[in-house]
């Protein structure tokens, strides 16, 4: 009896862990899409109205900014997953 509750709470924990993982990934990939597809492609012309230095913001995002955003996203993912792992005691 106690064994089965333990295993069901364990699988609940696994479900929660997976849910926090999915939420994190969804948030980060939205930023990825906004930076990569939104500002750099579909709205590049409107973004180009704003200047960053001497080039348009859209052009700058397409050739520089989005890459910086990608680096930050991968870093944030690794750090946030460390926290989630610790919370669920899944770190080795």
């Amino acid at each position: 009896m106690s064994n089965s509750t333990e295993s069901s709470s364990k699988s609940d924990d696994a479900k929660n862990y997976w849910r926090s993982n999915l939420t994190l990934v969804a948030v980060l990939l939205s930023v990825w899409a906004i930076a990569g597809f939104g500002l750099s492609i579909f709205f590049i012309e409107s973004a180009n109205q704003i200047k960053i230095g001497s080039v348009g913001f859209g052009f700058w995002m397409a050739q520089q900014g989005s890459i910086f955003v990608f680096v930050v996203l991968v870093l944030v993912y690794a750090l946030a997953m460390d926290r989630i792992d610790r919370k669920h005691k899944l770190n080795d």
Partner: protein
Amino acid sequence: MLDSNSLLASADPALPWTWAFIAVTFGIYLYIGWRSRVKETAGFYVAGQGVPAIANGAATAADWMSAASFIGMAGLISFSGSDGSVYLMGWTGGYVLLALLLAPYLRKFGHYTVPDFIGARYYSETARIVAAICAIFISLTYVAGQMKGVGVVFSRFLEVDLAVGVCIGMAIVGFFAVLGGMKGITWTQVVQFFVLILAFIIPSVAISSQLTGDSIPQRAFAFSDISARLNEVLIGLGHEAYTTPFTKFGSSWNVFLITAALMFGTAGLPHVIVRFYTVKDVRAARYSAVWAIIFIAMLYTTAPALGLFARYNLIDSMHESTIERIEVTVSGEDPKSFPFPAQRAEAFAVIETAQAENTKASKKGLREPNSIVYFLTSKSGQPLDWATRWQNTGLLKFEDLDQDGQINLTLIPQTDRSKKSELAKIDRDIIVLSTPEVATLPPWVIALVAAGGLAAALSTAAGLLLVISSSLAHDLYIRFCEPNATEARKLFIGRVAIIFGIVVAGYFGIYPPGFVGEVVAFAFGLAAASFFPAIFLGIFSKRVNRAGAVTGMIVGLVFTITYIVLCTADKVLPFLFDAPLLAQENWLFGISPQGIGTVGMAINFVLTLAISSVTAPPPAEVIELIESVRIPSGSGKAVSH
């Protein structure tokens, strides 16, 4: 002093430096290969899974940044203007997908190859075979391009025959890949990363300070007036402004589809994925993705700056240059030299016949029999020796259309509505390799760029060869022909397979088949349309089953291959077709073949999900496998079945 200078003007001052740099770097690669020779398959295929995150990050970056990234990409961007972003975002944005959606889970799974995962997750030998064949095909097309890159560097910088260059490259890769497998490859890639990144950044910093007075290329790119200056020059010559979007690929939808195909393709490329199998655990896989994208971003944020600077510099040095003399070599005869303006009339008479023969030959797909080399002096009085050397490789060509003894880069509308300038041909591969010479940087920088180009090509070639070897030996041969092979026998077969891969790659490098030029469209489109959906859904859905995944992969692949072949028939199968079977005006919804992988991927996703939902769910042990890859703890040693 002056005399000896003018005598030596045609000798390449970078030559001794280049030999020295290449000898030293190749020596290091060989030494590492010898030090990391392996005795078991875990070492051979996944480097014993003990590679530290930062080292794996550097190795992944070198693995990823190929001859195309190093030699070709800045040139591509240089001629694509704003639309060059498809390569920049496509080849970095894919890492976000890889890091968040694939790498940690595949590391937890822990087997050796991508086909291993597909075979186990979809409980199907058919799926494994389809995956292994895809992996081999993608890697072979890709590796041929690397070998050609090695040949170009050797023939231009060391003035040896392209075939000899390719053979030297094959011997070096062969040595450390055969002895050390993944372990040897990993540690050489770490060194190669530092060689290639230095070789890319040093000339970029130099040219940036020269042109803009700012030594940080990324800052000069946005904050100096260089982009405005280039826009002005280009518009003056009849081109579109550099920073205007959609000049190269037509519409925002095409730019989106191409970017997406490159991103999802990147995430699905087997030689990149397997790098994440080599680290200690899931956490190390995440952090090696962080290091990898940092290292990759170092080159990828410099490249657009270099592309912009190089475009400006090239135009600036070639526009309105004066012809000193023209050297014409009619097939088999000694070269004849015509000094300008004294023998102008004679020169153009000879050129006309020579050119007519060349056009005839190139229409038949033959090598052009005659060479015409322009010796130029820039408008500031500098002799353009680098232009002479590049003309000798056939990658740069001039044609004085109005025969006024000057090279003018203004685009002139022709009778057939095309536009032409007196710069008859400029191969995009020249941009990076010629930058130090155009900017008159010291000879050792030129040599460093040559060594960097080789490091980029060899590191990627090695990673690809390992995938070819593991697919042939581990996924196909051992599994189906000798399932009971001993450890020593397995290792032996892996080494034979790598040698086989090297020989095939070398052959393609020397005699490139038509499809090598289309390699980007092929390799990425195929990876996006086949691997990405299968791996992603395999992890994130418990419902997706064998019937769905296998159908999705095959239909996605066949659709993508068919469309690319139809659009590029004249280049892929030149002996059968003179023109593409699907001309640009008939493209499906105007979608370019480079972007079709995204559509193939969408078809794959829809089919996989639809078929899975109406067929039986996967068996219990597969559900268990999915649950286990979703939990990071307990990723132990690799399992070799």
